Every structure is written in structure tokens, then in C-alpha cells.
């Protein structure tokens, strides 16, 4: 009996593991942003430059990481593009004059710092531990 329970637990863990790894990012915004949650479609539209205002009229400021697993997962799962396709999308905007590449940083610390001092900014990091030393940034949840 114990062996079966152990087997079920291991199988269950293996099945859950991809989901745990897949959601390896949290969404953060400047604390002045009214939103407490955001839909996947709104995140996608903000990071593609299609949605430029929060509901209170403040300009949205998407903030990216330059590279890494967190960046890749966020872009693939929420923006629904590969990282190469995402870069090409913004290059198209640049070379047709329709937009500028969102700001991006090498480290998550820089992302947190920028979002903390920029009204309307939204970005993503891997761990809430990075927010221990700031009160200017808050976590918002992903809604359906």
C-alpha cells in the first residue's frame, strides 16, 4: 500500500512539475497602478504596444528582461510569441516608425528599480524576494 502511495505521489509530482516550472515569473507594477489583476490578453496587448493606457489613463510602460528563462517563459506563455518573433515584432515597429522597443534590463534588480520609479510601468521577475527592499512595486495576479 505504501509503495502504491509513493508511486502515486511521484507520478503526481512529475505531472505537476512542468506547471510549476512554467509559471516561473510573477507580474509586477508600479504601486500607483490601480490594477490588482490583469488578463493575459491585456498583458499581451501592453507588451505589443496595442494597449497604451491603464483604465485610469496613465500610460503603460512595459519593461522586459533582456534574456533568461524568466524572460523566455513570459514571452512564450503570455505574449504568445517566441523570443525571436517578439524582437522582430518590435524591430518592425521601429523601422516603420510606429513605436520604440520597450525598455529592457539585464538583471531583475534593475527591472524592480525602474518599475518602482516609473508610473505605469509593468514587468516580470522570477521571485517576490526581490521586492523585500522596496515599497514602490506591487505584485498583481493573472486573471482569466
Amino acid at each position, binding site marked *: 500500500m505504501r509503495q502504491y502511495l509513493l508511486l502515486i505521489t511521484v507520478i503526481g509530482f512529475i505531472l505537476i512539475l512542468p506547471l510549476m516550472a512554467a509559471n516561473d515569473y510573477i507580474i509586477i507594477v508600479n504601486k500607483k497602478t490601480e490594477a490588482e489583476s490583469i488578463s493575459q*490578453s491585456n498583458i499581451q*496587448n501592453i507588451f505589443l504596444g*496595442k*494597449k*497604451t*493606457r491603464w483604465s485610469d489613463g496613465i*500610460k503603460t510602460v512595459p519593461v522586459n528582461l533582456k534574456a533568461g528563462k524568466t524572460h523566455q517563459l513570459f514571452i512564450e506563455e503570455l505574449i*504568445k*510569441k*517566441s523570443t*525571436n*518573433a517578439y*524582437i*522582430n515584432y518590435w*524591430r*518592425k515597429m*521601429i*523601422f*516603420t*516608425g*510606429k*513605436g*520604440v*522597443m520597450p525598455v529592457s534590463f539585464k538583471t531583475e534588480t534593475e527591472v524592480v528599480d525602474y518599475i518602482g520609479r516609473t508610473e505605469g510601468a509593468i514587468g516580470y521577475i522570477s521571485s517576490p524576494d526581490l521586492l523585500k527592499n522596496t515599497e514602490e512595486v506591487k505584485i498583481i495576479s493573472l486573471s482569466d
Partner: protein
Amino acid sequence: MKDKRIILGLMIIMTGTIATAQSLMDKLNVHGFISQGYIVTSDNNYLNMNTPKGSYEINEAAINFSMDMTDHLRGGLQLLSRDLGKVGNNVVMLDWAYADYRFKDYLGFRVGKIKTPLALYNEIRDVDALRTFILLPQSVYDENVRDFSFAFQGAALYGNIPLSGFGDVDYNLYSGTFNIPDPTSGFWHDSFLNLTSGAEMFVINDSTTLENKDITNSGVTAEYIWGGSAYWSTPLEGLKLGGCYLYGSLSMNTDITFFLNVSYKIHPLLNQYQSRQSRLEADIRIKDYYTLSGEYSIKNLTLTGEYHSRIYRTHIPASELFEFSIDKDYQLIGYYGQATYRFADFFEAGAYYSFYDDVDSHIQEEPDWHFTQKDICAAIRLDITPNFLMKLEAHHISGTGLVLICDNPSGRTKTWNLFTIKSSFNF
């Protein structure tokens, strides 16, 4: 004391000016690209080049400057230098330059010189780094008609409209005019030859044959252009459907000289060579110029298909050269299907099949392949660094519908191949 106040005032002004300039510099975005290629064909001079001998005359370079001036207002411009055989010749030109005011996400306004939103890739046709292939499918992205399809001077409305769970739509509506940089270049020269061929029947008769003809002082004036596009990002993730429409008007005029051989049947020695000059004018309407597009991306695979049709309505008024006016519609169609797959960050490959038909130009005296062109293409793209890439591409082509007659006076070959390689750097 007064001098010190003046100096202090000047320092304040200079500091403010420097601070303003620094602030502006912080907001200024500068980007650019450089591409250089080599192209060779087994037969036929193509794209305004002597391609059987190989040509390096395929390159682009650009630099652009843009700035968000306020939360709603952006401005920018791009300078472009390009060469494609006899076209471009690396003359630096204004590619686009406009002010963009975005009232809401669903409504914005642009004014200036704007890239024409035609089909999926027209706005980026000069940016090699933004696609897998060196040559876009010519059946839809015909380089011969680039002059009136790549950009216009005028105004546009645009926006993105969410559809509450049914995706969203990006739209454009525009109106303006366009420039023809060189009315004597390959495509226009061929167009004048085609126009003047209709006048030949008025000078040729039983005793008069045409030895040669010459056109000079050619001019093309664009009058207006208007159109729109709409692309629906559907609820099925990765699927985009849409289309575009364009209508335009231009006028063409040229001096034509016919060199004739007049035969007097009494004796061949009495035959005479004569020349006859006249002025030819024509009004052209670019009507029903539309492209329907579909693109589906899933993970690293992208499938794209587009269908294009355009009709030129030609009106030649009665004149000394034409006894009566001529009105004729010429339709051209083209379509393609392509697939690209990114195997790794540094490696992408793709292929397409493209078909073109100059529908209303088929005549019994010439084979159909003179007016059609089927193109099978395979390409690979190597992203050596995030900013530097190389491409290799091969085409197997049947037909010469898009091969210019003026570049191939000795005739054209039905089945031919094309190879091209290109490298690009962007920042």
C-alpha cells in the same frame, strides 16, 4: 556687478539649454541597418540587373530617428539608401517621416510620408533582417511597381480595436500622393513601350512598316492615392487574417518617334525611310488593387499565404496619333504560400511557391510563359549574432512574366534559376 548678472543669466540659459538638449538626447531613439547581397541567374536579366554575370547591386542602408515628444505624440524619420540594379543607385532618400498622435488605442492620426500598409510585408520590404527570405514573393511584392506602393505623402488614421473575446483588429485608412523618382527606369520604360505599341496600328499599313521606335521626355505624374487595411488577430492564437485595398491615379506622357520604311511598289529603290514624331498621353487608374492575407504561427513554425490582384485602367484620348480614344483594363494576379521554421536561435529555414499572371496581356503571337511566372524558393537564415545575419537562397523559376523586356532585348528563357546571398547588420 551688472556684468556678473549678465554672465549668471547666460549661464542659467546655457544650463537650461544643455539640460534640455540632454533631455532630448535621452529621449531620442536611433536605429539603422545595412545589407549587402549578391545575385546571379542562369538566364534572363532580372530586377534591372545583368544577373547572368552576377551582380552586387542589391543593398540597402538606413538610419532612423524617433522620439516620444509627449505621452500621445511621437515623431520620427528614416533615411534610406538602396540599390537594385538600375533602380535606387544608393541615392539617399527620405523613406518615411511623420508625426503620430495617438488619441486612444483605437484611434490615432499620422501625417507626413508614411509607408503604405499593403499586404503583410510591404512596410518592411527594405528591411532584410525582418524576414527569412532575401526576395519576397514577387507575385505579390513586385519590385517593378515599388514606386507607387512603398510609401505615400499624406495622412492616415489607424488604431487597434479589441473585439471582446474575439481577438482584435488593426486598421489603417489613408490618402495622399506619391512620387515617381525615375520615370525612365525599367518598369516605366516597359510601360511606355506597351502604351506606344497601341499607336503602331495607326502608322503601319500595307506600304509602311515600322523599323524602330524611340521614346523620350517621358514623364509620370502621380495624382492621388487612397486605401485601407484591416488585420484581425483571431481568437485562435497565432492566426491572423486580413486584407488591404488601394486606389490611385497617375498620368503618363512621352514623345514618341516612329522610324518607318515606306515602300513604293514601283521599284525598291524608291523606298523611303521616314520618321514620324508625336506626343502620347495616357491616364492610368490603379483600381481594385487588393491583397488578402493569412498567417498562422505556432511555436517555431509560421505559415503564410497571400492572394493579390490589381487592375490598371488605361485611357488614351484621341489625338493626332490616335484616331479614337482607347480604354482598356489590364488585370494582374499573384499569390503565394510559404512556410518558415526556426530550428534554433541561430538558424531558420523557409520555402515558398509563388505564381504570377499578367492576365490581360496574353496574346496569340507570344507563348503564355511570357506573361506568367512560377517560382519555387528555398532559403536559410543564419543569425550569427543578435545583430548580424546571413542568408542563402535558391529559386527555380518557370516563366518570365516579371522579367522586363527592356532588360532582355535578345529574348527571354522560359526555365531559369536564381541564387542569391545576403548579409545584414542592424542596430
